[in-house]
């Protein structure tokens, strides 16, 4: 069976709950499709959720899918259930979809939303209390309960829409909501965003048709516009008329940026990229780009903002890389730090500081935190058995050991995990261990290490989380990861390593050891700030005044949400702790993963060579930001989004608005005489702008971008309906109308340029230059839509903003970056192993190529049998191919590859 769902489709709720309830989940494949995708071949209109049965047939009715799950688990149909389901389909659904549409899409509130469904809610309440049964069809929870619960949940999860007086409904709803399958379904579908989760889906649905018992106007458009109250419209118009005058004075730029009492002080960090790798698009969207959007937004709100990042430079991997390139670790760090800095500069990341972790400040602060932990008894010593390679004269990190898996006997198990059986391995338990670098057999040696006593700190951590989490904007995945770590109980963590390249441990007997990177990397944020200003403590020891937002991919959550807070709490030094931990899911590349070793995917330095401007990359990456679930970069989709959303929607609107001013009014914004229609448009734009703010305040970056596109769609429609290019040739009244429409449109364009600033800073600046938008209006975004280009304002020269991406251009890029692995690699097993190929494996392969080359040469010299030679040559070619893969060289002749 295969279940097709769509993000934010309300029908997913009952279906997932029923699947969970009837234990139908195991055999269930779940695919997520777009809201406009037609899954069922015989249905003209899109419909989700849909269950494709093994017979090939489709169930496209939500109730029928739920019913099917229940039937599979042995449930028998009965009249009462049928009656509830029929009622749900014919009476409840029409009322509910109207209510939800008003609430979610049109932003109505209170009785406007509750009105349509009140009768239905009362009906359920009466039925429950009359029968004095806890459930709809009897003593136990059944199909009817799940289907109705799922239908009602989007609305009733907000207590405002669960009327107090309906006591029976109240307790029925609470009982069901607290059950595990329902809870899980709700978490999956709502992602803790409440009713907003349904917005992307419902927005694409047609306005629900009228239903019995309620007078609804026939004009859908009238309907939509009528949803704004007169008061809202009046407020929007008043704000608009105040214009530039209502902008507050611009905050003076200060250097260094320091917290100011009484202001909102926002400290933003993005995860420190590891220095020895060039970041790929997934790294970029997960950390720096997401944080950049928020930092830029925060500045537009005039919040006192400091955004910092830097390279994480210590550790084994740097040492190895240095060995490989014949440089010192410091030289490697210098080289790669510059590479990183250049990439982020190209992507227009607005760091206030881009520092590094290999500084004296880092040593000072890390050692200080350590000393405080030590004196307070949160650090203890223990002996650790470790593998040491005598040949290489060093202790081996887990990933530098290979051997036979003690569980399944797999020959190439890694030191931390077996790839075959998936079990976690303690490296010293490997049979026949081998050093991956020199292939000699390491010996077990004991070594003294320091441990952070996390169990002792657990209670403090939980107290802090209890105060911090409620009401904060921690993403659901981060909350989940922290919850599961705490559920399993914290364990002591080793914080030292037998290495040279790291922060020295200030303790006798530990002179040749350093701190393990995960203990000191998160301290990097603090030391980077300390390198920026000697008043760093005003940011980092000031939890009362500072709001700390930390951005990362989800694999980094434990270090930021657990380890650093524990260290900081244990140090008892009033450290500023993360208020909002914003974690993304993963970004995939086409249909697979990014892989440096296989040369698959686009890496930061290559994006510049594509000829596609940085802002287009930013836009597309933010458009597909893995917010709530994994997403994938796709070349075709990028072309599509560029050509449809940027070129045809946004670019088209802004360009037309500007062109009309230039062509029809000599570049001078005309007089605007607002009609009731225009006032409503103002209110609509204001509403969408406020929605944008709500989303960005909650760091829903991807969704807020949709609001921008929605406004420009409104704008395009407005121009289309009012046809200023025709009216300009008409009567005096027509000409005046053309002027109003043009003036309003160009002001919407100006607003869009500011809303766009966090996402596409260069395009934003270009629009503002074209429109000659006054300076204060460029740097401040209020919650109201203002007339920032008043009548008489002279605009500049208008030109197109975006370029069309062509199919063959994208196709050649796809080829070049190895996406769309339609052609399966010849030896998948080998290639798979290459995914983790490090320099050692490359060395092994190089050796094998040399060896095989010698064999071939010898055979040829001996004038051996032709077939035998051919066979050995084939082996050689194969090895060379593997080597090329491991080194990240493309398989095809590297025609398009230019090293710039």
């Amino acid at each position: 069976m295969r279940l097709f769902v769509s993000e934010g489709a309300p029908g997913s709720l009952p279906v997932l709950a029923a699947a969970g309830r009837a234990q139908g989940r195991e055999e269930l494949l779940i695919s997520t499709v777009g809201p406009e995708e037609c899954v069922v071949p015989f249905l003209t209109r899109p419909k989700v959720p849909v269950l494709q049965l093994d017979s090939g047939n489709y169930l496209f009715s939500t109730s029928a899918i739920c019913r099917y799950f229940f039937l599979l688990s042995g449930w028998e149909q009965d009249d009462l259930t049928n009656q509830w389901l029929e009622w749900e389909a014919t009476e409840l659904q029409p009322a509910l979809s109207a209510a939800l549409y008003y609430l979610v899409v049109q932003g109505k509130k209170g009785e406007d939303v509750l009105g349509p469904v009140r009768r239905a809610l009362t009906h359920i309440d009466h039925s429950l209390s009359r029968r004095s049964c806890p459930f709809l069809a009897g003593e136990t929870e059944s199909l009817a309960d799940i289907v109705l619960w799922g239908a009602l949940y989007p609305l009733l999860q907000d207590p405002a829409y669960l009327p107090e007086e309906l006591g029976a409904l109240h307790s029925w709803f609470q009982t069901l909501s607290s059950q595990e399958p329902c809870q899980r379904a709700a978490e999956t579908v709502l992602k803790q965003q409440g009713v907003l989760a349904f917005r992307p889906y419902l927005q694409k649905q047609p306005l629900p048709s009228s239903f019995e018992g309620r007078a609804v106007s026939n004009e859908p458009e009238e309907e939509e516009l009528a949803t704004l109250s007169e008061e809202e419209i009046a407020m929007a118009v008043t704000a608009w008329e105040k214009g530039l005058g209502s902008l507050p004075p611009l905050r003076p730029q200060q250097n260094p940026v320091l917290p100011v009492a009484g202001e909102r002080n926002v400290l933003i960090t993005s995860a420190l990229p590891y220095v020895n790798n060039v970041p790929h698009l997934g790294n970029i969207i997960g950390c720096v780009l997401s944080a950049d959007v928020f930092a830029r937004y925060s500045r537009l709100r005039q919040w006192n903002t400091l955004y910092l990042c830097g390279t994480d430079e210590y550790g084994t991997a740097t040492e190895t890389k240095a060995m490989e390139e014949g440089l010192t670790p410091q030289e490697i760090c210098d080289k790669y730090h510059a590479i990183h800095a250049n990439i982020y500069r190209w992507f227009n990341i607005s760091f206030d500081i881009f520092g590094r972790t290999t500084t004296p400040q880092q040593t000072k602060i890390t050692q200080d935190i350590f000393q405080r932990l030590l004196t307070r008894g949160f650090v203890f010593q223990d002996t650790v058995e470790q593998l040491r390679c005598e040949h290489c004269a060093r202790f081996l990190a887990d990933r530098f050991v290979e051997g036979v898996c003690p569980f399944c006997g797999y020959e190439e198990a890694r030191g931390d995990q077996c790839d075959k059986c998936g079990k976690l391995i303690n490296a010293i338990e490997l049979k026949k261990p081998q050093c991956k670098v020199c292939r000699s057999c390491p010996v077990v040696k004991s070594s003294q290490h320091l441990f952070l006593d996390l169990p002792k700190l657990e209670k403090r951590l939980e107290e802090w989380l209890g105060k911090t989490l409620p009401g904060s904007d921690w993403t659901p995945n981060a909350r989940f990861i922290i919850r599961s770590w705490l559920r399993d109980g914290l364990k002591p963590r080793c914080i030292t390593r037998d290495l040279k390249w790291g922060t020295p441990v200030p303790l006798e007997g530990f002179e040749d050891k350093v701190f393990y990177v995960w203990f000191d990397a998160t301290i990097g944020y603090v030391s980077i700030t300390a390198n920026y200003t000697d008043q760093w403590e005003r940011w980092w020891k000031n939890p009362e005044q500072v709001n700390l937002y930390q951005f990362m991919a989800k694999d980094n959550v434990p270090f930021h949400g657990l380890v650093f807070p524990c260290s900081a709490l244990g140090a008892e030094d009033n450290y500023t702790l993360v208020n909002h931990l914003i974690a993304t899911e993963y970004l995939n590349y086409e249909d697979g993963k990014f892989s440096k070793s296989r040369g698959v995917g686009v890496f930061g330095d290559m994006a510049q060579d594509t000829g596609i401007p940085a802002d287009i990359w930013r836009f597309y990456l933010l458009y597909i930001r893995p917010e709530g679930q994994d997403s994938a970069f796709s070349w075709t989709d990028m072309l599509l989004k560029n050509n449809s959303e940027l070129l045809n929607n946004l670019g088209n609107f802004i360009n037309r608005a500007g062109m009309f001013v230039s062509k029809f009014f000599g570049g001078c914004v005309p007089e605007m005489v607002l009609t009731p229609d225009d006032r409503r448009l103002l209110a609509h734009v204001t509403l969408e702008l406020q929605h944008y703010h709500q989303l960005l305040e909650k760091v829903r970056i991807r969704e807020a971008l949709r609001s921008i596109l929605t406004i420009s769609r409104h704008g395009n429609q407005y121009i289309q309906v009012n046809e200023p290019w025709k009216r300009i040739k008409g009567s005096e009244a027509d000409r005046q109308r053309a002027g109003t429409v043009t003036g309003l449109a160009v002001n919407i364009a100006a607003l869009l340029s500011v809303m766009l600033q966090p996402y596409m800073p260069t395009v934003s600046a270009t629009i503002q230059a074209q429109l000659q938008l006054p300076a204060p209006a460029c740097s401040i975004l209020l919650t109201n839509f203002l007339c920032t280009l008043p009548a008489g304002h002279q605009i500049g020269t208008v030109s197109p903003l975006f370029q069309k991406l062509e199919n063959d251009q994208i196709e050649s890029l796809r080829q070049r970056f190895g996406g769309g692995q339609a052609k399966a690699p010849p030896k998948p097993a080998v290639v798979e192993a290459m995914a983790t190929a490090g320099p050692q494996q490359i060395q092994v392969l190089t050796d094998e190529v040399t060896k095989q080359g010698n064999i071939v040469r010898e055979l040829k010299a001996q004038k051996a049998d032709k077939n035998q030679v051919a066979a050995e040559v084939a082996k050689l070619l194969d090895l060379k191919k593997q080597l090329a893969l491991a080194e990240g060289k493309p398989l095809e002749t590297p025609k398009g590859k230019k090293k710039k």
Partner: protein
Amino acid sequence: MAAAAELKLLEKSLGLSKGNKYSAQGERQIPVLQTNNGPSLTGLTTIAAHLVKQANKEYLLGSTAEEKAVVQQWLEYRVTRVDGHCSKDDVRTLLKDLNSYLEDKVYLTGYNFTLADILLYYGLHRFIANSNSASICPNPAWRHRLLQVYNSGYPNTTCCPPSGLSFPYAL
């Protein structure tokens, strides 16, 4: 009382001799079945399924889990889509979808005649009867089979063949 009339016809074709009493509720005139024992039942498809069980013809509700779910899906389709407020375009889409669904099927569930065929056909009757265009009729073969089915009990229409086939094999 259109729904009651339909249910009366269904009773007849199911061979239920003692007639039930129906009333209608609300603006949409939803049928209500008054039963002697227990609460009344409301809703066309709910009552229809109840009648089928009364007549011991449960196979008309489908025999496997899949069939049962498919039958209920099309019953729901009947009361939500076919009986809903439809514009001309909606009707056209609905018939087109149904036609393409039935392309490789004898009945709605595939090979077995069920309550879904009966109620859906009856619901579609007004569209088909009012239309001269063959293009918007659902799958002609299905229609033909169904016409035979309905001939005995359901009202004669201009579309019906004059043949007097009695209620069919499946029942």
